[in-house]
């Protein structure tokens, strides 16, 4: 206990010792160094501010002029009629794919690695493999999706040629992409569970699975949820693999409109697709200013609203639990 008190008050103690030794003189070079460091941090944040400001000033006029119609509309070659509803549908199903496929497999893998796996070479290799998978460029996952989900498995429907580039294949690709993130964050959350909880449960005769179900998972739940939220946000913002898997550029005839029955219709899964980030990237590369600046920024606003909300939720959740447990 005594040790922790000393280390937590280091800053204050050191400051007063420094002042006493140096007298009243100010450490100019030290202050400059500190200011330079702070400038690095503030510059990074300034960039964030400029970015958000640019996107809002470029994209807001679209919403003030067209409002709901922009969200509800379909892709179009006319900038004043183009809307993003098909992208919202695509991104919705991609997020659903992550929740249904990546979360159970990822959490299961993490439980196995932390609670069941013997400490041997195979386990060490699996752990190394997961860490490396997390660092594989996202565009390479697109190639995996193209080769396996589209070409080999026919987009899960057996259709021919380009029709196989389906939303289901895209959702599966992104689920594989975020799998290592789910495993790593879940494993971290499980590692933070105190040993005493497990030992207490084993002590009263619980089986391994009972210990996991009644002690480990409830304690680690907020951490696991944080990891899942982060991976959903990551998947919804990811464009490169979708482009490789075969997101539609230009025109998509069906699936427009934001009625609930249209959005949750699983029929979209076996059809070709677009998602919010691929719409953004397609529009940003068009020559017309209305698409390149206004419409792409407006689509970014819709995507950022969701991504930043989910991310903030995850960060707040984690910080709150950390604070509660450290006191």
């Amino acid at each position: 206990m005594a040790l922790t008190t000393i280390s937590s008050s280091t800053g204050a103690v050191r400051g007063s010792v420094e002042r006493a030794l140096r007298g009243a003189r100010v450490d100019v070079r030290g202050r400059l160094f500190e200011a330079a460091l702070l400038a690095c941090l503030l510059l990074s944040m300034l960039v964030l501010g400029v970015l958000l400001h640019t996107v809002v000033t470029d994209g807001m006029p679209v919403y003030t002029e067209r409002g709901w119609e922009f969200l509800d509309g379909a892709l179009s070659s006319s900038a004043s009629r183009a809307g993003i509803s098909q992208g919202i549908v695509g991104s919705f199903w991609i997020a659903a794919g992550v929740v249904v496929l990546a979360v159970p497999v990822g959490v299961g893998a993490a439980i196995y690695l932390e609670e069941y796996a013997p400490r041997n070479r195979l386990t060490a290799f699996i752990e190394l493999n997961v860490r490396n998978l997390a660092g594989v460029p996202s565009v390479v996952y697109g190639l995996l999706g193209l080769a396996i989900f589209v070409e080999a498995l026919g987009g899960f429907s057996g259709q021919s040629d380009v029709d196989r580039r389906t939303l289901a294949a895209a959702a599966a690709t992104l689920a594989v992409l975020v799998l290592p993130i789910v495993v790593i964050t879940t494993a971290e959350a499980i590692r933070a569970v105190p040993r005493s909880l497990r030992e207490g449960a084993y002590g009263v005769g619980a089986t391994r699975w009972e210990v996991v179900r009644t002690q480990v998972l409830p304690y680690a739940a907020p951490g696991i949820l944080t990891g899942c939220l982060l991976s959903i946000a990551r998947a919804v913002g990811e464009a490169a693999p979708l482009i490789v898997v075969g997101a539609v550029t230009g025109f998509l005839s069906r699936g427009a409109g934001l009625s609930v029955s249209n959005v949750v219709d699983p029929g979209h899964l076996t059809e070709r697709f677009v998602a919010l980030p691929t719409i953004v990237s397609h529009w940003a590369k068009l020559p017309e200013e209305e698409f390149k600046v206004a419409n792409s920024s407006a689509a970014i606003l819709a995507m950022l609203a969701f991504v930043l909300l989910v991310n903030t939720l995850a960060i707040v959740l984690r910080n709150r639990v950390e604070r509660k447990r450290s006191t």
Partner: protein
Amino acid sequence: MGLVLRGAALASLLVSALIVGSLAANAAGFVAEVDWGRVLANDAWNPRQGRFSISTLVVGSLVITGVAMVVAAPLGLGAAVYLSEYARPRVRAVLKPVLEVLAGIPSVVLGVFALNWIAPEVVGTLFGEREGRTGSMLAAGIGVGILTIPLMASVSEDAMRAVPSALRQASAALGARRATTTLRVVLPAAVSGIVAAFVLATSRAIGETMVVFIAGGAADSATFTANPLDGSLTMTAAMASLATGTDGVRADALAVPALYFVGIVLFALTLGLNLVADRFVRRVRRTY
């Protein structure tokens, strides 16, 4: 239950095997059939016309990664040192989450920002506007750099926070100023973690696609150039542009196998960097 969970863990191995397998199988045709004189030539990357100069893409990747690290390494490391050594807990509790928000910004957003703001306002102001094209490797590189700042910052901050405070106390007790303690004691002790952060950020920058695809100043072909003010393609952006519009008729039968060939080069490169970073990260853990 144990068996089911074990299956889930083995799924990660299956994913790796499928990645390597599908890349190798599809790239094999390219390796066997392509005219290697064209792959090794330093002229241009234009798969639709059968020009496969891989060096054009590798140099494009190097230039953009170089620019990105010039931006991300000092800013990320500076931010990390401030958060770990100088910031009061309450300040840190506010600033750190903001940095994490920056980490959560999708790369397409940075791409549009690089094209619509960095290219005209930063690159255009410094080096003059160029006619006919707005994007450039410099603009895209700055965008990629901004994207990797949070990674650089968080990994090196973790490394510095892992340095025992006994070291800082000993240094302070010998009369060292805080800046001296940071530069001579904390940074050397955390050096392997900082190297790991740098390597990971490099790997992330090489693998970044969308920023270059949108703001790199080249559409689906690029001539060999190492000038950051020119537009060019990286390995990743070349893959993305090769994949768009593949619905149409392809001029060269090797265009799609080329996609996998570039993919396998990229995969090998980032895998190597990630393994190196992993070594360094583990060294930090072993020492303390």
